[in-house]
């Protein structure tokens, strides 16, 4: 059969865009297929009236700046994609309601962060600081493991990287307890669990520390023109390098050759062949688009063993008053009914945790003068959507949800948002199921729970994904969820495919 393309990338989400940009830029004939009419998946924007809303990004980690570029900055820079980054130097404000509650605002920078922690929980500074001191040990060990191509010497690990072995194999809570970080301090720092969707008694500490360190050292970054800017900047790289992007082109079938290797896809009824296919689409959906006889048992069992990651419900408000008039001063506020992440997770249907962002704090002109936008995020699983919810009751369900959270926040902050709502849009896992097509509307692929942590994913990737000619990138892949992890998997897989095609025949 004739191979029309070197590479077909299915899905123009964050990882798919970077993967396609990488292969195109390295001279491979690349086709990127996207079922929607825009690139980005979650990384997009939408307009209502005079507002342009950011649909999903709260804070992009691992960016840094020109002087101190971190992973994401380097990926964009190496591809030649330009982004107008804006920065937020507070990490977050955490409010726990009730008499045992607290209201703490933390700053970026390890020392300011630790100082604020000390002020909130006297006596905790040294132990919190120690947590950050372990970060270089983790990166050293990971660099060593990578150098050894995933087969490190046991003796070297035990003698030189024992701390890493401990951090990589224990939960956030276990590691923090062993460092003597007091409970209240743990709870404050662990407010961040919501960004990874797994509570900290189950979340792998190595992963969490990586995210925490990145936010605390560099602060968070936001693209000036919403995430649509990120996605279009990557699309430009692909097109400038001679790659092809087809929108409204949903892949409906994955094609396999006689040896069980993926050799192409069908999209819009057209059969398209390639030497390699990169899927930004979750394995569950790919297997549903494949002849079952081509799915090896290993791959199928892995998919069945996993649970879906978290989705979210979100409220987007365009208000006809400025954030100052409204009385809002923070970019990110976490509101909780209980300080403990596990309780927040278990009780999520009862407003146990939600996040409120006001983008005007980071980007003052992100909405017209005299207006501001508010963005509510509530961790929600697809299975939290009531089983008996009928299509005709869905709008009422959304409105009731939004009303409850808006009222809750108004009461907490002593502000009036209701009378200023000029535009409103509400999303739930149903919305994400619609736009992303993921099972249960998951935005994070597979949950990073317990055994399915990133170290396990990275170590076993080669044994677990056995279909030749097919690689996976995105939140469901080896680095787990979030924009930055998705970009990293796109970068890694893109380069791997370049090497495989250019190094091969």
């Amino acid at each position, binding site marked *: 059969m004739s191979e029309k393309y070197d590479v077909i990338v299915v899905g123009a989400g964050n990882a798919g865009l970077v993967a396609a940009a990488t292969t195109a830029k390295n001279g491979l004939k690349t086709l990127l297929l996207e079922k929607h009419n825009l690139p980005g998946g979650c990384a997009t924007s939408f307009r209502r009236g005079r507002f342009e809303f950011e649909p999903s990004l709260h804070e992009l980690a691992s960016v840094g700046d020109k002087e101190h570029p971190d992973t994401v900055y380097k990926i964009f820079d190496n591809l030649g994609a330009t982004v107008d980054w804006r920065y937020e130097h507070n990490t977050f404000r955490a409010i726990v309601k009730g008499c045992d509650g607290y209201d703490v605002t933390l700053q970026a920078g390890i020392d300011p962060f630790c100082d604020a922690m000390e002020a909130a929980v006297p006596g905790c500074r040294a132990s919190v600081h120690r947590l950050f001191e372990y970060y270089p040990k983790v990166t050293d060990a990971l660099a060593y493991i990578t150098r050894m191509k995933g087969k490190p010497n046991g003796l070297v690990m035990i003698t030189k990287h024992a701390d890493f072995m401990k951090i990589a194999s224990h939960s956030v809570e276990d590691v923090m307890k062993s460092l003597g970080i007091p409970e209240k301090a743990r709870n404050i720092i662990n407010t961040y669990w919501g960004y990874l969707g797994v509570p900290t008694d189950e979340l792998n500490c190595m992963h969490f520390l990586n995210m925490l360190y990145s936010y605390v050292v560099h602060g968070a970054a936001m693209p000036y023109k919403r995430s649509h800017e990120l996605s279009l900047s990557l699309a430009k790289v692909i097109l400038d390098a001679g790659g092809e992007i087809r929108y409204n082109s949903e892949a409906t079938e994955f094609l396999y050759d006689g040896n069980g290797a993926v050799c192409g896809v069908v999209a819009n009824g057209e059969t398209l062949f390639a030497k390699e296919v990169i899927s930004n689409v979750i394995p569950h959906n790919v297997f549903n688009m494949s002849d079952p006889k081509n799915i090896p048992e290993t791959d199928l069992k892995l998919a069945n*063993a996993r649970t879906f990651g978290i989705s979210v419900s979100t409220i987007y408000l365009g208000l006809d008053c400025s954030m100052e008039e409204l009385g809002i001063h923070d970019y990110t506020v976490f509101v909780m009914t209980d300080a403990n992440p596990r309780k927040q997770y278990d009780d999520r249907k009862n407003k146990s945790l939600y996040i409120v962002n006001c983008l005007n704090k980071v980007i003052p002109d992100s909405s017209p003068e005299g207006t501001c936008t508010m963005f509510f995020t509530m961790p929600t699983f697809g299975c939290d959507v009531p089983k008996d919810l009928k299509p005709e009751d869905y709008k009422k369900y959304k409105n009731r949800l939004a009303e409850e959270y808006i009222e809750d926040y108004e009461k907490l902050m002593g502000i009036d948002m209701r009378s200023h709502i000029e535009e409103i849009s509400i999303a739930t896992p149903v919305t994400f199921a619609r736009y992303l097509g993921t099972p249960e509307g998951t935005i994070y692929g597979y949950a990073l729970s317990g055994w399915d942590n990133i170290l396990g994913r990275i170590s076993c990737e080669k044994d677990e994904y056995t279909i030749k000619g097919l690689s996976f990138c995105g939140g469901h892949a080896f680095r787990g969820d979030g924009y930055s992890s998705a970009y990293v998997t796109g970068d890694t897989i893109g380069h791997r495919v370049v090497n495989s095609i250019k190094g091969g025949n």
Partner: protein
Amino acid sequence: MKQNLRSLSRFDFLKMIPTRKAKIAEAPARAIPATDSYKPNELANALHPKCQHLIVSEITEREKDVKSYSLTPDIARGTEKLAYFSAGQYLSVALEIGDVKLTRPYSISSSPRESLDGRYELTVKRVDNGLASQYILDNWKVGTEVLASAPHGEFTYEPLRDARQIVGLAGGSGITPFVSLAKAIADGCEDANLTLIYGSMTEKEIIFRNELENLAAKCSRFKLVNVLCDEKVDGCEKGFITAELIRKYAPASGDYSIFVCGPQVMYDFVDKEIEKLGLRKKFIRHELFGEYRYPEKNDDYPKDAVGKKFKLTITICGEKKTVECDANVTLLNAMEHNGIAAPTNCRSGVCGWCHSRLVSGNVYVPKEVDGRRMADLQYGYVHPCSTFPLSDVEIDVPPFRL
């Protein structure tokens, strides 16, 4: 005492991979469940199907040159249930008229409740030179197969945003979304009050008069005021929809939201009147602008383009075609009139469904229908439905999809 990681075992590390492998080994090798089997996906598909295959089941002759079409699901072609909608939303209907392939958005004029029983109603009025309306009125018969989109549109009552008291301003065939809203209020789908000020030229041209008067008689939350500009008739206001007239029927105290839907000539007049009321922007909701005409009337339009013809080169999935495009014709219309089906829904610049990349050339986008995102301007993307050529133009367009 300085605490370190002493209490944690390093050997747990060695168990990580075996634990993972064991978990996977004990998982079943059964087939992956269909994506639709999950509740969020099932709901998403029910509310937003990729398209709807419908069939004309009944035609109601209304006033001169106006007909209502009952559409029911065409099970044989795969549509079992109609997608539920909010009063005020529209369906984009795909049409092939000779060599021309186009779509038209029509507001649904039935209540959302009726869609549960398998019925939408679209109401079409003949427009002078209106290719689609003439085609539908002359060709759709009982049994005609219709390909339509899922319901779209933002011209809906939103209880967290709008005042519960709505003053609707309708002109001509712009009555259709209000008919749906009035029915939805009467049958309890929407919890709002509607005072509808409906402008027509003459009494004969009032569409849905009987239905609306019956609804108003039965439902205290819905009031109807007919306004005629060309004749004086008892029971109707004479003249235009002015600020003074709106004040007369709007609630004397408390907030109210104005919803406006009608032809462009009506917007030109009514928008200025609404301005006089000094309402906050949030209380004024506008239905789609509709096909933009006469861009050359705008002050910022480059006058040297008037009357010119340009070449429009279109690439869809790698296939290139070149057609002619007059300066006062949108890129979308030029494509459609040359038999090129392009994705579009609102045809008014806002929904972004026709989002396409401007490869080269200069274009004009009227401010009031420029619904592009900020990054689109930076990276050169256009919405062809609201874009006019100022030179030869090349665009990359996604394949057609409803």
